[in-house]
């Protein structure tokens, strides 16, 4: 028991640190590259099934999430990214 108690404390501490930084706000070059012609960058923000990852998980700021989703949809139109990875 005595060993477990500090572990819990550590956990709480790490939960505070969990807040992620938006990769686009922190890196201007990344923001510049946010484009439907860059599917490899967009690919980081879609799930294995091809769905757009919610920003509560990816940590993308509201402004860039809006831009990101638009760019992902453009890339999907050009078959650079999948709409879905199953049932086709």
């Amino acid at each position: 028991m005595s060993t477990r108690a500090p572990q819990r404390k550590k956990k709480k501490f790490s939960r505070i640190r969990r807040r992620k930084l938006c990769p686009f706000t922190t890196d201007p070059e990344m923001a510049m590259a946010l484009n439907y012609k860059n599917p490899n960058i967009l690919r980081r923000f879609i799930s294995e099934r091809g769905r757009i990852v919610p920003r509560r998980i990816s940590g993308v700021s509201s402004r860039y999430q809006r831009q990101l989703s638009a760019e992902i949809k453009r890339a999907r139109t050009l078959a650079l990214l999948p709409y879905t990875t199953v049932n086709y």
Partner: protein
Amino acid sequence: MANQRLYETTFIIRPDLEEPQVEAIQELIKDQLAKAKAPQVRWETWGKRKLAYSINKFSKGVYFYVLYLADNTVVAKLERTMRHHEDILRWLSVSVLDDVDTDAFEFDTWANNTTPLFYDKENDTRKEEVSVKDKTPSEKSEPSKDDEAELDAESEDDGNVEEKVEENVDAPVEAEEAADAEV
């Protein structure tokens, strides 16, 4: 005619066409832009790529990209042509800049600012080209290697908690509950 918009159009054609037919389609688009007196800024051939999903039962397509100054009527006409063309599978027109002054437009800068051809896992041949391009600081080229490095750094910083979050939202909660149960 002083102020126009900068448009970019990407289109995909069938992968099984012969060289003359491919040329003909390119000429068709170029001619139409020329007839509409829309100055073509940049023409790019992205080549044959694997499609993320099959279009008209084709799993590959040949990509072309054109950047040009025009107004909306030109784009509408161009899209109509592409819609009626059997060999063009898909196209996308995007307005890049609004209200461009044609006289002050820096054609050379825009013409040289080519799209970095993305690294494709299926066609590994481009890997070297991309890595060379990454070293030259051009406006749009994005060093994908740096991203990966950054990702790695991030995940090292936050440790396993972050990984859990990415895998499953419920995972940390579950882990916490498990911890509670243990105590």
